[in-house]
């Protein structure tokens, strides 16, 4: 097995292809992560402020999340008129999944900000929009990041389904390996996908520590 792996990576063609596909995979999974988060925040804010919109927004999110990825990849070109074999479809589909997955946690996180905190900010003269960015959003970061971690794992694993319509990052190794009956290629694809998910997860954990310095400070203070 190890010999075969070495042979795989010794071949310049496979090495180059793997690197290209890995780059594509990173791009196809992380762009929608950012777009989805940017979509979920205002929608979550809307659902928080207007109780009548809450039901429809959460309902739409759960329906989107229910639709299987391959079906969504195929339906998006029909709705938006994008070319069938364009990476845009995969990116939009995964951004929708990310937003759908983040909807509920964003809402919960915004609601968990204590009323006296927002009242204090208002009393200090913060306008609603600035209060949202400067007070409510930072306090929601821990919950938000843990939801983004879930979405990143799910995106990274879903990208490879796109290989069936020609745009799938490391999923290309699965279709290519299947057609050539070359198991090592598939195995390399699986392991790299898992490693990528792990690395992105670690980066997100680091990001949370960086963005919430007060959580460390309060731990130090609360120690006896």
């Amino acid at each position, binding site marked *: 097995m190890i010999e075969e792996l070495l042979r795989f990576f010794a071949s310049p063609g496979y090495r180059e292809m793997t690197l290209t596909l890995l780059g594509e995979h990173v791009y196809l999974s992380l762009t929608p992560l950012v777009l989805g988060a940017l979509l979920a925040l205002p929608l979550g804010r809307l659902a928080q402020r207007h109780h009548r919109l809450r039901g429809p927004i959460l309902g739409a999110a759960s329906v989107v999340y229910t*639709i299987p990825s391959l079906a969504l990849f195929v339906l998006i070109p029909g709705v938006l008129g994008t070319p*069938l074999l364009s990476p845009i479809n995969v990116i939009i589909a995964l951004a929708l999944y990310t937003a759908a997955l983040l909807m509920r946690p964003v809402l919960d996180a915004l609601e968990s900000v204590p009323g006296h905190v927002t009242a204090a900010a208002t009393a200090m003269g913060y306008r609603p929009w600035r209060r949202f960015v400067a007070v409510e959003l930072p306090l929601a970061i821990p919950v938000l990041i843990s939801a983004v971690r879930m979405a990143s794992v799910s995106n990274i694993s879903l990208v490879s389904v796109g290989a069936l319509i020609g745009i799938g990052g490391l999923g290309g190794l699965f279709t290519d390996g299947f057609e050539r009956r070359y198991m090592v290629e598939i195995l390399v694809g699986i392991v790299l996908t898992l490693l990528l998910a792990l690395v992105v997860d670690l980066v997100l954990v680091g990001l949370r520590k960086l963005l919430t310095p007060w959580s460390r400070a309060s731990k130090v203070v609360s120690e006896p």
Partner: protein
Amino acid sequence: MIADLLAWLTNPEHWRGAGGVPAQTLLHLYYCVVSVGTAMLIAVPLGLYIGHTGRGATAVVAVSNAMRALPTLGLVTMLVLIFGLGDTPALAGLVILAIPAILAGTCAGVDSVPSDIVDAARGMGMTSIQRLWRVELPNALPLLIGGVRSAMLQVVATATVAAYVNLGGLGRILLDGLAVGHYEQMAAAALFIALLAVAVDLVLAGISRLVVPRGLALAAEANRDGS
């Protein structure tokens, strides 16, 4: 585009025989029910045991989190290369993918039962098995069924993808449409796949309402009103 789709949908050819929409929908549903059912037979007893004894709970969480990152297409193609073409390797892949969600849901369900309730059951003289069967399992049902629902979504989606390794079902219609470049056929199949997924999820939500003990539903409602 819409006209092409309507033409495809209204063509009686596409509604007849083994390759037609009704037959492939039933086949798709059959794969899903068989693999989620098999996964439940493995994961529910194991989850109850782990949740009841508390042994190995950390390992379950770690493994089920790692499994969520596993690319389904990679798993399915690899199983078929190892065991050869046929329904069984592809279905085995679906079972493997369904297990973590059900296992995690069962464990979390048993784990979520308040310890004072379990203590009260013990105080009433219930044996370990009675506590598991009459207290922990009913209380665990909401989260357990939640696990089954997410496993079912995963399996409906992956059964579509598994058409690539020659499994039947609605994914077959979609990929055949791709092979001959008929977008309207792909879109029609995608539409039915999405509808099937939503319908299956609704049915499971309905089952959840039916089997979750009335007291639990009332308690959840009371908590929601109280907060």
